[in-house]
């Protein structure tokens, strides 16, 4: 039992500078800002489709029932500019790292409110739900304030004010001390839960039959693009529901916009069958990322392939999920290795250095993840 507790504590709380959560913060914010506005939870609560038809569900329905606490949806026009300005400011201060922790906390809470508000009307956004939770983790976890404007100012203040010179290393100062890694690992747990739940959902609703490739064929062949929303029924409909329509309509089907390569695959049943099996294996097997570095490398690379596939074949981009993978990369190790190599070979061209960085980035982060732990702990 003690062994398990020790392992548990080591997994979540043993200080490490392996992940450099601040680098993830920057990349995550760049993605957040660069992503299409339609992807943001904010835009759907500002400009929802036909809001008059929407019916509040829990908890908005409960708050509205209390009268005084009526939740505004959509956000009234006179406040929209102010809300957008405040949200944008928080995005940029979080990216640059000005008052980093409060900025991240406010951004995470505001984003969750907008996401939750939209969901409280029954419309769940699969693409933005996980990034919203990751933002909460980023706001609370140690290490997310590294590589920030605050850090530069602090370094400048310490050197000028107290020493009058710039002897200390800015790079090390920005990277900060080793911290508990529960932030990036919690994001990995969230990813594992979401993928595993997706796999279980397929088995729960369709059983192993889902792997025969027919469902994927339906979406890749473009049959989901029709003038009307299609629904399916369950032959084992509840007898008590039979009176409604006699067939037991039970679920709506989603839509995919297949690309020419997707349509090509749909013509070959063997290919859709293989892809279906691989999808199930990937989703149900993703929790194996916790069984060692090799499994983690394998499933993260498989995840990149999976999301590239859904985007390039079905027109369903979930890039926010792949951005989450950046949380578990050894940024410090990759950067230090690159800098070391750059110093020893100064004649290299920029493009060659960039290629070397990418190679070392993948090799250091994926294969030598824990190498720098002891080094960073010695610093402290």
């Amino acid at each position, binding site marked *: 039992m003690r062994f398990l507790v020790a392992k548990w504590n080591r997994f979540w709380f043993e200080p490490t500078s392996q992940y450099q959560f601040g680098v993830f913060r920057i990349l995550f914010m760049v993605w957040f800002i660069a992503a299409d506005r339609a992807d943001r939870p904010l835009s759907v609560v500002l400009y929802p489709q036909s809001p008059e*038809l929407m019916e509040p569900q829990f908890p908005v329905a409960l708050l509205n029932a209390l009268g005084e606490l009526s939740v505004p949806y959509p956000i009234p026009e006179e406040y929209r500019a102010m809300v957008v300005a405040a949200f944008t400011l928080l995005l940029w201060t979080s990216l640059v790292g000005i008052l980093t922790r409060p900025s991240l906390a406010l951004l995470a809470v505001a984003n969750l409110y907008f996401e939750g508000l939209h969901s409280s009307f029954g419309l769940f956004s699969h693409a933005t739900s996980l990034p919203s939770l990751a933002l909460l983790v980023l706001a609370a976890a140690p290490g997310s304030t590294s590589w920030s404007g605050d850090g530069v100012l602090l370094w400048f203040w310490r050197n000028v004010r107290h020493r009058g010179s710039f002897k200390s290393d800015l790079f090390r100062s920005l990277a900060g001390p080793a911290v508990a890694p529960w932030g990036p690992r919690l994001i990995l747990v969230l990813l594992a839960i979401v993928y595993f739940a997706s796999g279980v959902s397929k088995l729960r609703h369709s059983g192993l039959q889902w792997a025969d490739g027919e469902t994927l064929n339906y979406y890749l062949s473009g049959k989901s693009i*029709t003038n009307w929303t299609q629904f399916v029924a369950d032959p084992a409909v509840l007898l008590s529901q039979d009176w409604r329509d006699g067939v037991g309509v039970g679920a*709506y089907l989603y839509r995919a916009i297949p690309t020419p390569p997707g349509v090509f695959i749909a013509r070959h049943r063997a290919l859709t069958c293989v892809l279906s099996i691989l999808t199930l294996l990937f989703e149900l097997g993703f929790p194996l990322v916790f069984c060692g570095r090799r499994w983690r490398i394998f499933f993260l690379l498989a995840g990149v392939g999976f999301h590239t596939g859904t985007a390039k074949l079905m027109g369903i981009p979930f890039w926010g999920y792949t951005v989450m993978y950046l949380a578990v990369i050894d940024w410090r190790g990759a950067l230090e290795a690159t800098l070391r190599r750059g110093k020893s070979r100064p004649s290299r061209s920029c493009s060659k250095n960039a290629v070397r960085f990418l190679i070392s980035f993948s090799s250091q982060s994926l294969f030598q993840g824990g190498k720098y732990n002891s080094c960073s702990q010695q610093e402290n």
Partner: protein
Amino acid sequence: MFAHYVAEETPRYAFRFIGEGENFEIELHASYVDSEESENKRMFFLYAYGGAIHVSHFQLRKGDLKGAFERRVARYFRRYFSVLEKRYEERLRGIQRIRLELVRVNSESRVIEVRTIGHYDTKSETFQHTWSP
């Protein structure tokens, strides 16, 4: 997402709202209420109709009763009709009832069977379920 099994032969259905006037009928498209078809029908399904599949997470209405079903659908159509009225379009004037149809479509999305589930009366603001096996 995409968890429900769909094959070539899987029966597929769609909902249709038909506006009925004195001497005319008009299919009420989602664009008449400034909505997209998928968003519009999903909302109808979530708020009013409800899923009847054993393991559905689409607002499963376990043990749904006719009265409760009629009230939910009426509530939805009340909102729907109030949006329609605001459009002031000539062709939408004079609608007295909205007929709720469940249509079965084939793999080419052609209608092969129509079931009238019930009618919403715009005056009394009530929905009457009429379909019987």
